[in-house]
């Protein structure tokens, strides 16, 4: 195969890949992060407590419970994943009522039935030992009780029914406190042993609260107590505003770069446009592919958040630099007395060595950043890594072939086209 055929082949290969990328980008466009489209982001961290140690198992259980709760909220495309040893990240894009969601997701929902030892001066009950917990719960639902007061009806499992019957028999005519997350909901007097396996929780403020409590009781208690380490709610229009501002700036920046390249490098500048176009398509295509792989492993995909958009703008600068290094190299070879034709041919391979090293260094930094980074920084680092892979790929298969092919045309006879003084 002649080198000319090789170059044609490699451009054909690139064009097919571009078409594939475009197809996948249109089919499954990268999703916007919630800093851009609005929604809620929470990081819940488990607290080490006597009696409730934070273990791998308890964290997995907590994750499971939270998943169930979020599913019941009916949010589309939630992201729920472990973060580090003892934290859980929950992202709910586009959620309407973040406050309510937060109260449901993070609630421990530890239901306890505790003996009452008496009351203090202010009339508050003094609690004794825990007689039973909400573990043996079969179902819970919101309802209205006497005087249309909101209540939660609970139903025990077979085992729970037996235990509850035992407790109510033993403590008949005494008070029994129903405690949810250390808060005494009510402390009624047991009139007679309850053997039907049903009980109600009263003392609620509203039917909304009853609904919430029923929901968290249904999904079971969290095995560990979770604190909100970080929460972020973004209004839908605020995110949109910053997206538009970022895009406007990005587009203007690209136009300036394009103008500069064509004024300074002439025909090379036009090649840069093509290269950058191919590069950007590959970058988004790769992003879609990586997201597909991540999701198939049950991991959260990378959303386009503000930092990742900044990363894209930066990596486009790096990609433009690869072209600049090659063009400057060609100019240098011409200055040293080589013909433009030879320089077109050899300039690439020399320039490539330079930015290969520079790219590898940036890649190392990004990889470490990705591994240790948290949240948005990871998206940023991933974009940098993907960008560098695309940059090397585009340079090797596209820029090189275009420059090589050019040396076969008669274009090189006119040095002005390349912004070069006549020499070749």
């Amino acid at each position: 195969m002649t080198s000319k055929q090789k170059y044609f082949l490699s451009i054909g290969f690139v064009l097919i890949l571009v078409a594939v990328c475009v197809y996948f980008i249109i089919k499954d466009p990268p999703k916007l992060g919630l800093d851009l489209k609005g929604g809620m982001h929470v990081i819940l961290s488990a607290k080490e407590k006597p009696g409730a140690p934070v273990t791998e198992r308890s964290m997995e259980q907590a994750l499971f419970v939270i998943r169930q709760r979020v599913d019941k909220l009916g949010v589309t495309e939630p992201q729920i994943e472990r973060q580090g040893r003892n934290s859980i990240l929950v992202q709910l894009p586009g959620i309407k009522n973040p406050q309510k969601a937060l109260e449901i997701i993070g609630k421990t929902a530890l239901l306890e039935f505790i003996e009452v030892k008496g009351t203090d001066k202010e009339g508050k009950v003094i609690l004794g030992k825990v007689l039973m917990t909400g573990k043996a719960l079969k179902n819970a639902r919101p309802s209205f009780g006497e005087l249309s007061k909101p209540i939660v009806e609970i139903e025990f499992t077979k085992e729970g029914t037996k235990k509850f019957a035992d407790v109510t028999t033993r403590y008949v005519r005494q008070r029994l406190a129903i405690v949810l997350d250390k808060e005494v909901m009510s402390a009624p007097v047991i009139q007679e042993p309850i053997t039907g396996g049903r009980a109600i929780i009263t003392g609620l403020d509203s039917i909304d609260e009853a609904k919430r409590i029923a929901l968290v009781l249904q999904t079971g208690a969290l095995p560990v107590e979770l604190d909100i380490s970080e929460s972020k709610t973004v209004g839908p229009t605020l995110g949109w505003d910053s997206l538009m501002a970022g895009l406007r700036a990005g587009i203007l920046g690209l136009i300036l770069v394009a103008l500069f390249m064509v004024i300074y490098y002439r025909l090379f500048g036009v090649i840069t446009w093509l290269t950058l176009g191919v590069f950007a398509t590959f970058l988004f295509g790769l992003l879609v592919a990586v997201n597909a792989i991540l999701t198939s492993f049950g991991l959260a995909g990378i959303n386009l958040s503000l930092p990742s958009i900044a990363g894209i703008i930066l990596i486009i600068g790096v990609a433009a630099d690869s072209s600049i290094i090659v063009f400057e190299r060609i100019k240098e070879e011409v200055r040293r007395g080589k013909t433009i034709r030879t320089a077109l041919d050899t300039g690439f391979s020399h320039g490539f060595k330079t930015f290969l090293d520079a790219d590898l260094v940036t890649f190392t930094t990004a990889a470490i950043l990705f591994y240790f980074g948290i949240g948005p920084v990871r998206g940023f680092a991933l974009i940098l890594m993907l960008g560098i892979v695309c940059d090397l790929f585009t340079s090797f298969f596209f820029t090189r072939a275009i420059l090589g092919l050019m040396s076969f045309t008669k274009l090189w006879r006119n040095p002005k086209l390349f912004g070069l003084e006549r020499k070749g």
Partner: protein
Amino acid sequence: MRFDFIGRKKIWFALSGVIILIGFLAIIFRGLNFGIEFKGGTLFDIKFAKPVEVYQVRKELKAFNLGGSTIQPTGKNEVLIRCRSLSSRQQQKVIKALDEKFGIKDHSIQNVGPGWGGHITRAALIALVLCLCGLLLYISMRFEFKMAVTATTALFHDILIAMGIYALVGRVITPNTIAALLTILGYSLYDTIVVYHKIMENTPRMSKQTYGGMVNDSINQVLARSINTSLTTLFPIICLLLIGGETLKDFAFVLFIGLTSATYSSIFTASPLLTLWKETEPRYRSLKAKYER
């Protein structure tokens, strides 16, 4: 056109020294303004339906004992409020009060618990140290040890300058700032490596000149590339800085300073330092004695 970069190294070192010193003093006396992500706290981003003055907002916040919050007007009818960490109920109360008084069009709230920030900072520091170790190793292997050390020095130079200017203007440091600083780290090395690559290429071809002279030639050879690359990267960043919206503005600000400094340091800091060090080697010392008077 040829410039003498190496011969005037004392001027460049002095210039860098002065900028770093000013930044250092700013860090000591003004301190760095860490965002709520590091020290914990609540950040409200509120867009009102009509123009609202900062003092009016502050007056409302006093009712919640939050009169001392940082209130920063941004964009159109929009303010950022930074205060101590509030529970989600308290946050709602603040929003409700402001909504009743001024009318809120849209809002975002971010809350970070006090312990969490330390966690993030630690993770970032670990990443930084590992980055540096990895890079020292890589450059030592691909190039040489003296280049690795001087490239890293240039990198610290850039990070110090970016931090110093941050302290000077008192902008808030967010995780985005850290991401930007780490980008500078990569970019600074990227730039230095392009120059060092040229030096490595020219070293075997050295004839009748000092090491410094050869380095100076190398810099001149890559100068057009350095300037053009900086320009093409700076165009989008300047656009972000001017019209990119508040969040991206912060990001662009660090990148702007960092990239300018990175271009500068690869030429004016790393290469002269390398020359100084290399010329202590007997071989290059004798060359220097031979060709410089």
